[in-house]
């Protein structure tokens, strides 16, 4: 890629990096306290959908960048699913070259402004930071990533151009993180990329799922515009497998297809009362509010405004749903999770923000039934108290019911956020695809190639429910393998 030379010159052995390391003794660096992310006060933010985290100032970022010791064997990089050159971009921030910091990020990540906001850094890069061994909080890698990406976008120093075309057409199914990441990498390699999206907006889960207060649409749109200026074409309102078949795509001249159709079907628990009015999936609730503007604009799409809302589940989507319900006017919002708080898969920051916003956590509780009023509207949930037993195959201690410990809680809205199953459209519509028993597409771990020679896949359609960054990593690997195959 065009940036590769610049990035080499930014290597750890370059003169400027040595000078930066020598300029301040490690002891002084480690004495600097970790930066705190400035954020909107909780009582204000529950009244609107403004982004909660305000981003670091230049001064904060420059100081935080100094904390990074520029380790000879940086473990943070190994904690990143796409192996971003973390010390490389941080040291560029430290020397004040924000554009170069952004270029280092862009060399490995199509969506740095997104990842800086939604990655679970505490479980990835930051968990491997040397500071943890010193019993100190790790370098705020996520905050710095967001800073570099936002700074470059604000100053237009992240402009990209359209590379020379190979004349080879490739198609992408779905415009979520996996699809966008793949599209960016292929466009950079000179392929003519067309992204097909089923919805009327580009961005997939980044638009319909993650709310504005965590990831503003303007940030996602900037990344999409970047891809457009690299020559990527986006086509909305197309369901591959329905509007166009695999054969149609071949006939249209696409030599390779990357399937990133995401996690289609929301899971329900199969308990009595789950189809009462007011019980819905987090996908439905968030789509109505985020994508359709229900209740926030004068858009005609309706949404139920619960006063006492319960969200079932402990992941990021559950936190997003709970915090959205709060902003939509719910006076009481409960998060009901069958394990303990330590076992919650949500990002620590989202849980903390949710608590600040007055959301009540009913951990070690599991719904067993919903009952409704005479109109079929949910009015009560019955919760089974749980306790933690032996660890299950995921290593988390599995919850077991405490016999007889049932409580009833009055609710008028229940948002079920217990995971998703893969979207069945592609597996059903394309013949010859290897599909797992869970409904995910079976791919080669390295190349992401499916059982069909011209079809690759990644993201939730392969993983069944993962994170933005893992989906992006899949897109990268698929791009690299498909490009090699098509150029061979």
């Amino acid at each position: 890629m065009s940036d590769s030379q610049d990035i080499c010159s930014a290597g750890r052995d370059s003169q400027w990096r040595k000078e930066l390391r020598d300029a301040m003794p490690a002891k002084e660096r480690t004495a600097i306290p970790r930066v705190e992310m400035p954020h909107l006060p909780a009582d204000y933010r529950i009244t609107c959908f403004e982004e909660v985290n305000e981003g670091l100032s230049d001064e904060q970022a420059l100081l935080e960048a100094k904390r990074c010791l520029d380790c000879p064997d940086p473990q943070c990089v190994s904690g990143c699913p796409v192996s971003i050159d973390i010390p490389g971009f941080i040291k560029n921030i430290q020397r004040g070259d924000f554009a170069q910091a952004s270029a280092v990020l862009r060399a490995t990540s199509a969506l740095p402004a997104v990842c800086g906001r939604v990655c679970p850094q505490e479980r990835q890069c930051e968990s491997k930071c040397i500071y943890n061994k010193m019993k100190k909080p790790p370098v705020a890698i996520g905050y710095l990533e967001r800073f570099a990406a936002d700074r470059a976008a604000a100053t237009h120093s992240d402009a990209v151009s359209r590379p020379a075309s190979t004349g080879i057409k490739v198609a992408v199914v779905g415009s979520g993180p996996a699809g966008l990441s793949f599209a960016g990498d292929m466009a950079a390699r000179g392929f003519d990329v067309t992204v097909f999206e089923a919805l009327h907006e580009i961005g997939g889960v980044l638009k319909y799922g993650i709310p504005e207060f965590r990831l503003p649409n303007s940030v996602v749109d900037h990344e999409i515009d970047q891809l457009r200026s690299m020559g990527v074409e986006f086509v909305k309102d197309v369901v591959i497998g329905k509007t166009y078949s695999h054969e149609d795509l071949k006939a249209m001249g696409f030599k390779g297809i990357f399937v990133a159709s995401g996690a289609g079907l929301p899971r329900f628990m199969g308990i009595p009362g789950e189809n009462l009015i007011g019980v819905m999936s987090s996908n439905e609730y968030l789509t109505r509010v985020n994508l359709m503007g229900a209740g926030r604009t004068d858009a005609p799409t309706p949404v139920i405004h619960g006063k006492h809302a319960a969200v079932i589940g402990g992941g990021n989507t559950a936190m997003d749903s709970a915090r959205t319900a709060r902003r939509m006017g719910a006076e009481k919002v409960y998060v009901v999770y069958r394990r303990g708080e330590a076992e919650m898969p949500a990002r620590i920051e989202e849980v903390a923000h949710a608590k600040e916003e007055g959301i009540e956590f009913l951990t070690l509780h599991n719904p067993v039934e919903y009952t409704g009023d005479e109109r079929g509207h949910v009015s009560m949930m019955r919760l089974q108290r749980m306790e933690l037993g032996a660890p299950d195959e995921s290593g988390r201690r599995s919850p077991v019911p405490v016999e007889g410990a049932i409580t009833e809680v009055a609710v008028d809205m229940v948002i079920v956020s217990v995971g998703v199953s893969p979207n069945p459209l592609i597996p059903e519509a394309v013949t010859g695809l290897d599909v797992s028993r869970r409904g995910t597409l079976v791919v080669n771990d390295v190349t992401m190639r499916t059982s069909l020679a011209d079809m690759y896949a990644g993201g939730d359609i392969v993983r069944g429910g993962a994170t933005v960054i893992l989906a992006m990593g899949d897109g990268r690997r698929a791009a690299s393998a498909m490009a090699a195959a098509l150029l061979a």
Partner: protein
Amino acid sequence: MFKILEKEYFSPNVVKLEVEAPAIARSRKPGHFVIVRTGAEGERIPLTIADADPVKGTIMLVVQAVGYSTQRICALEPGDSLTDVVGPLGRATKIEKVGTVVCCGGGVGVAPLLPIIKAMKQAGNRVVAILAARTKELVILEQQVAPWADELIIMTDDGSYGRKGLVTDGLESVINSEHVDLVVTIGPAVMMKFVSLLTLKYDIPTMCSLNTIMVDGTGMCGACRVTVDGKTKFVCVDGPEFDAHKVNFDEMMMRLRSYN
């Protein structure tokens, strides 16, 4: 894209639109539906495809103005465009030769029934079509159905056209006069419920097509879920057609009132 080429009023509240959608016109099959949106902030509305012309690249939609969004769609004129039309969605109807098929359509439910009537006839079945409506003005697509039906029965609640009575009255008279192998019913949920109860009594396999509330229409939201044979199914990806005898219509009717 999605330009309206022709518009015809079937009744003051029901319009037929001929919409430019070449890819959908080519790939759609009987039973499929589309999601339609009008305006930048428009709601996503599921509509069944009544017919298609793959050569012209058009699909036929029949829309009844019942709420804000359907009123907006009905107010569009030839030359205007729908903002989004996505599809074809859902599973196609299973068409095979079974013998005698009675197709019962109520109100605008006749629109999605039309392609099924055609296909059933083309597959070699004897087709009896029963078109039902409250009153004469609301009987739609009679001309289009007629060439494909071996027998065409019109039922109106008020007797202003055809025979007076409900669709079930017409159906029961057919059942009493000849052997029926399959009943297909599309219309208001309450109508399908009573058709289903009747055919259950006579033990005749019955297929219905459900029109529930949807948002994305691709399996993502679950707003359209119904209980079929005790299990939760998504109308958008598992349907829209189901074995009517296994559908919990009461729950479906309750869920249709979610936003009333």
